[in-house]
């Protein structure tokens, strides 16, 4: 992503909208505390709540399926679709289905999947992954969307007006909706006591798809459970404000029973989540309500973009979740962070995000994933700094190197700092020396 400045400004704007919305509620911090408590309680009793949800949902006529991992999730959904001869599916936003790689799997079974969220459709047409969990195409400028639509949708060349392009997409997606046989959605919240689940969108694509077709399959991570209806009051007040600065999403849809003549399925997915429950330092990552605020506030994410993180979910929450999934493969992302703690302060569920990244770094080193070069460097540094004499030697050597080495050597390509910054200068006397002179000064 070359224009990081523009990306940074765009996401800072979203952060500011979130700030206005949050600060308009005197009870905002109390809501965050409640959300955190509800999630902690629910996780501690997760199995009971999942069983309660299953019981109530089943009573409501919802088919409840359980998938231990991504493969099983994909297989279950494919089986449901194939047994009903479904060829065309419309899907609303679900990071879980991204995580499981559902689309490519269904394609191998001859089932076409159209992602109907505008941002998701854009990245789908570009054959790339979303770069943000709420704003999938935030890394693209309107001109890029314009030329994509010119190619794929036949829009007017050179026209990059967002309204024109959005309405062109509306027409294009309507055709897919009307010819779809089934709709797949994600789940924002699943209410155990009611056996119902909630899907939040601004576009209404989840509602369109499920209204038009008679087969609705919802994908849900085990952590999406909340105990009762009243808790939705807290979460719906936090979610959209945190995500985009709106007091609520346009559509907040509660699915309880299948339509007349329709089928409603829900696939409850583990795929590594139960393992996270067992990770004392990082279990709170399961409290995430997928608002994306941590990405918007992260100064590193804003200047590098979602594709640079290497995991299906980017930013602070993505880094800790990716580390949970596979530390060796995805763990480098936990270093892509200054530990500034802005994410921890913004998270509506009060997840201790930066503490989790700090904790993962410890595990990363313990498991031996640190490069041998870094390991040696830290070992030497630590050894030298263990005694005052060696510390003085270390800084003494550095001081004379800085003084004596010519600039061409000092600022060679090995000096990473020096690529863009001047090195600091050593003071003629250290504080230790000045202090000695000070205490011997006549008063």
């Amino acid at each position, binding site marked *: 992503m070359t224009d990081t400045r523009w990306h940074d400004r765009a996401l800072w704007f*979203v952060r500011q909208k979130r700030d206005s919305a949050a600060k308009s509620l005197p*009870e905002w911090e109390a809501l965050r*505390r*409640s959300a955190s*408590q*509800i999630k902690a*309680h629910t*996780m*501690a*009793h*997760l*199995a009971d709540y*999942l069983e309660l949800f299953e019981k109530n949902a089943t009573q409501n006529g919802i088919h409840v399926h359980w998938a*231990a991992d991504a493969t099983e999730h994909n297989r279950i959904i494919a089986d449901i679709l194939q047994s009903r001869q479904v060829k065309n599916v419309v899907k609303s936003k679900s990071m879980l289905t991204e995580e499981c790689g559902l689309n490519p799997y269904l394609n191998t079974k001859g089932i076409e999947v159209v992602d109907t969220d*505008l*941002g998701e459709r*854009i990245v789908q047409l570009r054959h790339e992954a979303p770069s943000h969990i709420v*704003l999938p*195409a*935030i890394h*693209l400028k309107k001109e890029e969307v314009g030329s994509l639509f010119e190619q794929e949708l036949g829009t007017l060349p050179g026209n990059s007006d*967002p*309204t024109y392009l*959005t309405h062109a997409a509306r027409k294009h997606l*309507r055709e897919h909706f009307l010819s779809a046989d089934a709709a797949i959605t994600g789940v924002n919240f699943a209410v155990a006591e*009611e056996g*119902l689940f909630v899907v939040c969108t*601004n*576009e*209404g*694509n989840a*509602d*369109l798809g499920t*209204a*038009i077709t008679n087969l609705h399959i919802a994908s849900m991570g085990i952590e999406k459970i909340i*105990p009762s*209806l*009243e808790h939705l*009051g807290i979460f*719906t*007040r936090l979610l959209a404000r945190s995500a985009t600065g*709106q*007091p*609520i999403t*346009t*559509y*907040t*849809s*509660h*699915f*309880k*029973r299948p*339509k*007349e003549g329709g089928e409603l399925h829900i696939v*409850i997915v*583990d795929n590594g989540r*139960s*393992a996270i*429950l*067992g990770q004392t330092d990082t279990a709170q990552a399961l409290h995430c309500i997928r608002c994306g605020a941590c990405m918007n506030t992260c100064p590193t994410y804003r200047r590098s973009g979602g594709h640079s993180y290497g995991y299906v979910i980017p930013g602070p929450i993505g880094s800790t979740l990716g580390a949970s999934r596979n530390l060796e493969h995805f763990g480098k992302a936990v270093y892509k962070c200054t530990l500034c703690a802005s994410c921890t302060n913004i998270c509506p569920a009060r997840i201790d995000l930066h503490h989790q990244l700090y904790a993962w770094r410890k595990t990363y080193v313990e498991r031996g994933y640190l490069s041998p070069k870094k390991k040696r460097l830290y070992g030497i540094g630590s050894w030298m700094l263990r005694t005052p004499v060696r510390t003085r030697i270390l800084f003494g050597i550095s001081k004379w190197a800085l003084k004596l080495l010519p600039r061409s050597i000092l600022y060679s390509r090995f000096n990473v700092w020096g690529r863009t910054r001047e090195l600091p200068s050593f003071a003629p006397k250290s504080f230790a020396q000045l202090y000695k002179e000070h205490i011997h000064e006549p008063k």
Partner: protein
Amino acid sequence: MSRNKILAAIRNHTASMQVAPLPDRLEIYESQKPDLHTSATQFAKAVQAAGGECIDLSHSSGTISGSKISNVEDYFNGHTPEILHAHFAVIENGACWIDHHCTDDRTRYTLPEHLAIFVPNNTLVPTMHEAYAHIQALGIEDFGLFLSGPSKTADIEQSLVLGAQGAMVTKVFLI
């Protein structure tokens, strides 16, 4: 069987977790009782912020009879809107609660370009806390949704566009 495997794995990990209590009841949130004089105005502001428009017909007579507004097309530049009856609406966010009592056909609030939502004036509640208490009392049959303004997106360079997939024009009538 995966179900049992998953539940066993969860129980294995949560066995040693601290027993965390649920937070105290929601009375801690000081939601003011809606002032009938200002609640309609606040609600209208919220609907507008959500890209819609709110028309307060609660004090006018003659234009409303039963479930009809006699000249509703006038509000939609001549287009005939789909009419939906909401149970109640929420002041803080302009959202209207629509459920199976209103319609069994969910395409009615998703396909049409123009939506007219009727909300009884004396049913406005301040926040989602009161809204869900109300829904708990009403019960949900097979579905229910909060609808706030027209369909929208800002997915292209953060420019807000109304009418992304669903309704392009949504007007709420307080009756």
